[in-house]
């Protein structure tokens, strides 16, 4: 038995998981309907696809949610996992699931996939026969991804950085990388049997004042790490920044450099897609205005030429949305996509040049790290603060980068910490910032900048 196989068997042997029949699962993937594969849908339908978020504790409520999504012809369904499962706390998840099943209240903010198990979940997945995307935020997603793939969920979101730095306080970095290496391998493995499993990075990160250079670097890195393990279909992503032009610039640079780096490292035989997140930051406590905000996001997604848009709802500020509100957001998003015709192709040479130079500089610094493998180089770069995500709760994240919005609401780097932003780029960034004054003025500005949509 190969090492990988032994590892897999160890992983799935978990007191909260059911028994895994790998042979049966492989057979299932081989014969699975192509309509379950988002990689296939991307190939067939050359339009902006819409996908909501959403997960409820019980099977019944999850099924009802999907029925609601089906009514509005949702392109891709989500399976959002609750936060205990995300932190591998299956015991608490189990307890809360039981409470949710007994009472009418939801005691979990997502679907506890491990506790439900793949056999049950697969019934639901194949019933709807629509591609499903696994949304979690889990540093150690090995068992979760095994369970998802076995269920027929053929898109896996996340990555060792994007699901760690925004989602964890002290999960060890090296473990996260190794565990995600496992995930990539499993995805690559199943990709042999039918259409490729799609991996997607979570470019929204903390959704709070993250400058495009950081987002793009992390997208490129996670893409390359996935390709290294044999993944063939990957989605890079980012979330609305708050400045339309910055979104356009980010999209253009991200599209260009993702293809370029993939090819340069020998991964020419891969598919790369672009995913845009509707506004991921703080929402207004007003449902009507929230609806307008997500409409605006849809417009921008189309403007930047994304392949998929991930929707929010007008209830975002208040809590997990009802299934009706969630489906309504998809309906509105799909409607706007349908009527939005003849968008101009836009670019901004100066901004793109600056951003590209920043990304190349940080990528170079990462590649120049003396470690032997890419993941170790990246790990070291995080420790050194070369990669530094604003508002990350993780203790290893440097937290030295400070960003503020310029008068046009573009996110600009005010303090660059250890991130190797080239001199002329940093000068450009600083030249855009209008705020004057000391620490206090900057803090006040940042608080205001977090709440721009409120």
């Amino acid at each position, binding site marked *: 038995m190969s090492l990988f196989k032994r590892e897999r068997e160890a992983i799935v042997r978990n007191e909260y998981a059911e028994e895994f029949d790998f042979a049966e699962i492989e057979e299932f993937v081989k014969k699975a309907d192509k309509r379950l594969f988002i990689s296939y849908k991307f190939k067939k339908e050359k339009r902006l696809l819409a996908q909501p978020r959403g997960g409820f504790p019980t099977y019944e409520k999850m099924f009802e949610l999907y029925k609601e999504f089906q009514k509005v012809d949702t392109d891709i369904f989500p399976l959002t996992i609750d*936060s*205990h499962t*995300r*932190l591998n*706390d299956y015991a*608490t998840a189990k307890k*809360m699931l039981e409470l949710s099943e007994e009472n009418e*209240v*939801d*005691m*979990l*903010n997502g679907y506890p996939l491990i506790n439900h198990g793949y056999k049950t979940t697969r019934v639901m997945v194949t019933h709807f026969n629509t591609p499903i995307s696994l949304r979690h935020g889990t540093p150690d997603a090995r068992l979760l991804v095994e369970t998802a793939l076995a269920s027929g969920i053929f898109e896996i979101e996340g990555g060792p950085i994007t699901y760690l730095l*925004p*989602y*964890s*306080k*002290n999960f060890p970095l090296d473990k996260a990388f190794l565990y995600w290496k496992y995930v990539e391998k499993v995805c690559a493995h199943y990709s042999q049997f039918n259409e490729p499993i799609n991996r997607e990075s979570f470019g929204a990160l*903390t959704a*709070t004042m993250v400058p495009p250079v950081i987002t793009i670097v992390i997208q490129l890195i996670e893409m390359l790490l996935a390709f290294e393990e044999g993944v063939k279909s990957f989605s890079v992503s980012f979330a609305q920044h708050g400045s339309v032009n910055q979104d356009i610039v980010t999209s253009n640079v991200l599209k260009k450099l993702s293809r370029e780096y993939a090819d340069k490292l020998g991964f020419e035989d891969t598919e790369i897609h672009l995913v845009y997140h509707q506004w991921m930051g*703080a929402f207004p*406590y007003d449902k009507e205005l929230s609806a307008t905000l997500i409409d605006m996001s849809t417009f921008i997604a189309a403007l930047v030429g994304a392949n998929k848009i991930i929707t929010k709802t007008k*209830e975002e*500020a*208040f*809590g*997990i*949305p*009802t299934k009706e509100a969630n489906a309504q957001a998809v309906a509105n998003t799909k409607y706007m996509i349908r009527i939005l015709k003849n968008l101009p192709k836009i670019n901004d040479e100066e901004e793109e040049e600056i951003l590209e130079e920043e990304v190349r500089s940080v990528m170079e610094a990462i590649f120049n790290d003396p470690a032997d493998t890419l993941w170790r180089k990246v790990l070291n770069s995080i420790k050194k603060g070369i990669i530094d995500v604003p*508002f*990350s*709760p993780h203790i290893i994240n440097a937290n030295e980068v400070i960003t503020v919005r310029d008068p046009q609401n573009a996110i600009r780097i005010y303090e660059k910490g250890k991130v190797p932003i080239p001199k002329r780029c940093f000068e450009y960034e600083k030249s855009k910032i209008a705020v004057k004054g000391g620490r206090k003025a900057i*803090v006040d500005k940042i*608080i205001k900048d*977090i709440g721009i949509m409120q």
Partner: protein
Amino acid sequence: MKVVTGVVGNDIHVVANRLIEISLKERGFEVFNLGVNTYLEEFIDAVIETDADVLLISSLNGEAEGWCRDLFLYKQRFNFDKVTFVIGGNLGVGETKAEDIIPKYKSYGFDLVFHQIDLNEGLDILEKYLKEKRS
């Protein structure tokens, strides 16, 4: 005045937590910020260790209830008469009403409960509450 603060449970929403720290310091509190993903027991330990006047818990992801129900047990076990227990943020999964949420958390032993209330609005009320308590 000493405040222990942090985000309870498996909740990693850090933004409000950072702002709370800033605002509390600006208001002259001595702040012990345990950050996100902190369990009730850790909070209790920190309150005892720092001899804090206020325990100010945040929760954003809606799961506070499961993590905070046992506060009354700790209050039976230790003498927390001088400590003010505060919780705020988004205190239920899905859309919930303050009139359902507040009595529930009060019954667990919280003195002040802020459901979907702006930070500084809440902290103003806290300061007023502390002033009244002292006098």
